[in-house]
């Protein structure tokens, strides 16, 4: 056998190896696709069998949620409104704080100050949510009680406020990215017309970055809706249809936690409820995530 043949053989082996690696890597990359499929499948199986027993219209029209009681009611609204209420309060904190900080960092702060402040603010996002839950229940609620004496020990206000603080870095950092991506030429144009720094920031840069900021806000909302531990610890376990932020409520996520902690038997109807609620939650956040990506894409189309 000549040397050429050997090298040819080796080359074949090499190509084979390269292809094998490629296939391997492709498979690994597809884990994400499988995970999504897995989530849908895991949620769907028990959701379908839940709705086989409880018709969808009951789920959507009843106003009480008592699947663990003898008199079972399956109206999801108390959970949904509680979720929206806590998320709304969180956004009341996170949007103004996040935006103001983003504008400050992007348009006012010197590069050095930005380099120091940004990681400091990011720490807020790195604190485990269970710690925030502790903080809401043990520190914030007693503090609020001084001003709102009738506030319950578990309430959506405290949980929402703390959740808002947790989400500030998400809004701030994504919005800051969007603001910084606005070309400097626009700032120059506005400064050249005699605009002040504040006017440049609010009238030119912020509107120009609006779709990017919208993406940040929607993503933050999705995060608030899916947040679990803070509300499970501090917002209470009482599914009631109310918009009063001072009383205990139960969000979709805290319901899932409550059932998971209990000894609900596998396969029972009450067990299946967490998958129905989980599907609702997944759909809700999925729609928001898609919306957020749309905004991001629109923003990129303009500036990249």
């Amino acid at each position, binding site marked *: 056998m000549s040397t050429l043949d050997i090298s040819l053989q080796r080359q074949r082996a090499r190509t084979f190896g390269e292809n094998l690696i490629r296939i391997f890597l492709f498979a690994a990359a597809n884990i994400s696709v499988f995970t999504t499929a897995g989530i849908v499948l895991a949620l769907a199986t028990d959701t379908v069998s839940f709705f086989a027993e409880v018709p969808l219209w009951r789920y959507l029209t009843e106003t009480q949620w008592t699947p663990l009681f003898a008199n079972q009611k399956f109206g999801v609204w108390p959970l949904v409104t509680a979720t929206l209420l806590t998320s709304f309060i969180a956004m009341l904190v996170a949007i103004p704080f996040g935006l103001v900080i983003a504008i400050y960092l992007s348009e006012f702060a010197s590069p050095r100050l930005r380099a120091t402040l940004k990681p400091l603010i990011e720490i807020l996002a790195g604190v485990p949510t269970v710690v925030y839950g502790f903080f809401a229940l043990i520190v914030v609620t007693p503090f609020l009680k001084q001003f709102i004496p009738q506030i319950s020990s578990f309430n959506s206000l405290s949980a929402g406020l703390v959740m808002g603080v947790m989400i500030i870095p998400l809004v701030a950092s994504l919005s800051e990215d969007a603001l910084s991506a606005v070309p400097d*030429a*626009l700032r*120059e144009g506005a400064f050249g017309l*005699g605009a002040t720094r504040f006017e440049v920031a609010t009238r030119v840069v912020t*509107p120009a970055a609006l779709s990017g900021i919208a993406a940040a806000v929607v993503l933050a909302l999705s995060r608030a809706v899916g947040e679990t531990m803070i509300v499970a610890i501090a917002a209470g376990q009482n599914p009631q249809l109310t918009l009063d932020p001072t009383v205990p409520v139960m969000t979709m996520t805290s319901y899932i936690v409550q059932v998971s902690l209990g000894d609900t038997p596998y396969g029972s109807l009450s067990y299946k409820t967490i998958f129905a609620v989980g599907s609702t939650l997944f759909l809700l956040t999925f729609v928001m995530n898609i919306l957020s990506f749309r905004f991001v894409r629109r923003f990129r189309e303009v500036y990249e």
Partner: protein
Amino acid sequence: MSLLEASIMRADASAKEQTLAQPGDPAYALEARNLSVFYGSFCAVRDVTLPVRKNMITALIGPSGCGKSTLLRSFNRMNDRVPGSRVEGGVFFHGQDLYAPNMDVVDVRRRIGMVFQKPNPFPKSIYENVAFGPRINGWHGSKSQMDELVEASLRRAALWDEVKDKLKQPGTALSGGQQQRLCIARAIAVQPEVILMDEPCSALDPVATLKIEELMQTLKQDYTIVIVTHNMQQAARVSDYTAMMMMRPDRAGEMIEMDETKTIFSRPRDKRTEDYVSGRFG
């Protein structure tokens, strides 16, 4: 141009001292006196004395890196945006130093407008692009007066006929040349006395360039224009006066010569100007 003016100008160019001897000459819209611009410890422009005549077009030319953009941007204090920038000497406008401590930068920039290298319309409608300046500068005209102002600005920028039916459309949807004229209209709307143009045609095609050059000739009836350009032919075509800048060995920019444009291009006094000007033509 009158003979008298021309002769004054020649005298100016031949002796800087003489310019200084008659500060605040009403024929000057803007005057840099012994102006140096620093970025930190780096001196970008050194000791420039440059009078800018009213209702004339003054071109700043020179090889890249010679500080002509920096000089231009010091005329409306745009350099203030660069952290660590500072100036020595002064820029005089209506007898006042733009860099005096009590001077309001915002007002300076309204009265000395700027058009940039790349057209930079705001991502707003054509109408809002033009109305932006008057709004932020506290013009309290009625809606119909604002309409009138927008129309007048667009007309003066020779853009009205092309956009009058689509004022609500985004300014960014226009062609490059139209965008640049929109930026000119935007600058005009706040009634500046001086318009600074930083290579306004370098991103445009020849047809759009020609249109802007024609426009500049009409604009100079009402405004004083200072233009930085790379393009020797453009400087020769559009400007009345030309200042030639060079980079010194220490990389600071300096003005080596200023004169009537035809003099600069036909019989410059400085050898370097002659080389540069003819080199580009060659």
